[in-house]
């Protein structure tokens, strides 16, 4: 085959445009940082915002089709998730600035890392090749490790980073091992080929594929913090800087879910009868662990961490459904959850203040009386997490369980719904202290929120409500984008 035929065409670059933009922006920010005169703050944050805003249309309008010898494939799902992670990036940047300023750590590297990590996630969601997936995953992860430990003088940050890093690479090794076996079994690392192979008569022994799939599942389940691989999540999310936690709970997670959907609903669909039951169990375990462990938490970041585990469980229910509606539901849910959770964390960021002094739930006592606006926003987010109608969270749950029932997963549905009832308990506790307790010193001297943070909070709230009142906007897209 002539070399020329391998030269990337303009179409290839067009489909890779968002990643390119973001990478260039990241590099540029690093230069800015290097050239920045001492003490003056560079417009890094602003620039990052601009870059993300520019990347948004690039992601939305990317024509669908394969690129770079089928390394990537831009399809509805890719577009959906790329858009999602970029929006997530935007909100996170907005909610970070004030925080960093407060910590006297506002340096461009932070934004560069965020951008690169988003690049990694974009690569993950577009990749159609295990190699690409692996590299994207690593880009995103390594950036996340660093972000988690960004405040290098803060013991909690270090610990969180270390745990995330060690366990993360530990799990990655499993994923790799799985990939190796998949390669060995099918002779390919291209998902389309793999699927074709598995569907064909020459399919290798199922057990072989099964083991490979299992090992890969371990790697991905770790990333989405599914039980029993969830144990790192609470520590990491609690230890990391609040805005970073916000990012970690949605960005990498969404990307990992995209990969999960691609690999299992895509490549490994032929052996669904093998992995679906495992996902069933995993989903239930995840919901239970997340919800019940959250009941006893007193630190709001940790509580949200557990809740994020529980929500991963709900999305796994959709995966277990193993259907088009299922993947659509998962996509919608991840979108809704992204807005909700970033919003919630943004409020926490605002409230916890320098050194994250006020992260205990009791500190929120009487917030509604000093800062009714912020309290109302947090209320919206919590209601969405509970799954009260007219919020994105509700419709997310609704579609997920609808998909599950479509797939006749009646018991999983019932148990999941009961779980969501349990969840209501610990979210309500926050509402209780916010509205029904008298203000304490933590609330007394609470400064008003900065403009950018406000944008983040109100933006997320708007997104949450929008997804709740007019879900069709996103859902129709998700349905069109859904695999199969």
């Amino acid at each position, binding site marked *: 085959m002539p070399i020329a035929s391998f030269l990337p065409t303009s179409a290839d670059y067009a489909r890779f445009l968002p990643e390119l933009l973001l990478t260039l922006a990241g590099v540029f920010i690093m230069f800015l940082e290097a050239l920045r005169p001492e003490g003056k703050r560079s417009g890094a944050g602003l620039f990052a915002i601009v870059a993300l805003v520019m990347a948004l249309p690039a992601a939305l309008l990317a024509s669908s089709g394969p690129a770079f010898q089928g390394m990537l494939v831009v399809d509805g799902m890719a577009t959906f998730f790329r858009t999602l992670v970029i929006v997530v990036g935007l909100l996170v940047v907005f909610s970070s600035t004030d925080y960093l300023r407060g910590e006297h750590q506002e340096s461009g590297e932070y934004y560069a890392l965020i951008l690169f990590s988003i690049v990694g996630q974009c690569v993950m969601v577009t990749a159609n090749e295990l190699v690409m997936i692996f590299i994207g995953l690593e880009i995103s992860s390594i950036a996340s490790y660093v972000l988690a430990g960004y405040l290098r003088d803060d013991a909690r940050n270090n610990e969180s*980073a270390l745990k995330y890093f060690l366990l993360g*690479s530990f799990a990655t090794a499993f994923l790799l091992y799985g990939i*190796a076996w998949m*390669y060995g079994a099918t002779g390919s690392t291209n998902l389309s080929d793999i699927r074709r192979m598995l569907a064909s008569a020459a399919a290798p022994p199922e057990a072989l594929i099964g083991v490979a799939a299992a090992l890969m599942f371990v790697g991905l389940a770790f990333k989405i913090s599914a039980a029993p691989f969830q144990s790192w999540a609470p520590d990491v999310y609690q230890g990391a800087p609040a805005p970073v936690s916000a990012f970690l709970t949605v960005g990498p997670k969404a990307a990992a879910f995209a990969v999960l959907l691609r690999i299992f609903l895509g490549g490994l669909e032929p052996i669904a009868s093998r992995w679906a039951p495992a996902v069933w169990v995993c989903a239930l375990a995840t919901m239970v662990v997340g919800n019940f462990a959250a009941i006893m938490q007193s630190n709001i970041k940790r509580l949200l961490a557990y809740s994020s585990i529980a929500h991963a469980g709900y999305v796994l229910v959709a995966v277990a459904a193993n259907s088009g509606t299922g993947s659509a539901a998962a996509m919608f849910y991840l979108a809704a959850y992204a807005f909700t959770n970033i919003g919630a964390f943004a409020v926490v960021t605002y409230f916890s203040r320098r050194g994250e002094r006020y992260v205990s739930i009791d500190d929120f006592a009487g917030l509604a009386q000093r800062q009714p606006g912020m309290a109302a926003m947090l209320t919206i987010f919590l209601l969405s997490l509970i799954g009260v109608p007219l919020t994105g969270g509700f419709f997310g749950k609704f579609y997920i369980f609808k998909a599950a029932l479509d797939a006749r997963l009646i018991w999983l549905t019932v148990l999941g719904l009961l779980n969501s009832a349990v969840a209501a308990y610990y979210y309500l506790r926050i509402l209780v202290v916010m509205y029904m307790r008298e203000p304490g010193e933590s609330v007394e001297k609470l400064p008003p929120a900065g403009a950018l943070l406000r944008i983040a909070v109100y933006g997320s709230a708007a997104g949450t409500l929008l997804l709740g009142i007019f879900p069709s906007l996103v859902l129709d897209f998700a349905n069109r984008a859904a695999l199969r």
Partner: protein
Amino acid sequence: MPLGPLPAAVPPSWYLTLSAILFALGVLGFLLRRNIITVFMSIELMLNAVNLSFVTFSYVLKRADGHIFSFFVMVVAAAEAAVGLAIILTVFKNRQTLEIDEVSTLKN
């Protein structure tokens, strides 16, 4: 493994077995060692084991992709090493220890 007169060449499965053993040893190291750096090295061991599998498979399949893949794994390992060691440094700076079990303030 079947003992007896040694064959001229060993089947690939032996290589794979070796890789599995090394992988297991890596995991074991992760579980047993208390020094963070050693734990990290155990991960590297696991990655090496994976690489062996890749190379073996690509021999079986008579295709080079496995080599490519293991090449990327090395690159990634390098990157991880850089970041990982940096993280370990910060941890050490803050706690003056490399005992992994002492890094356990975040819990429950």
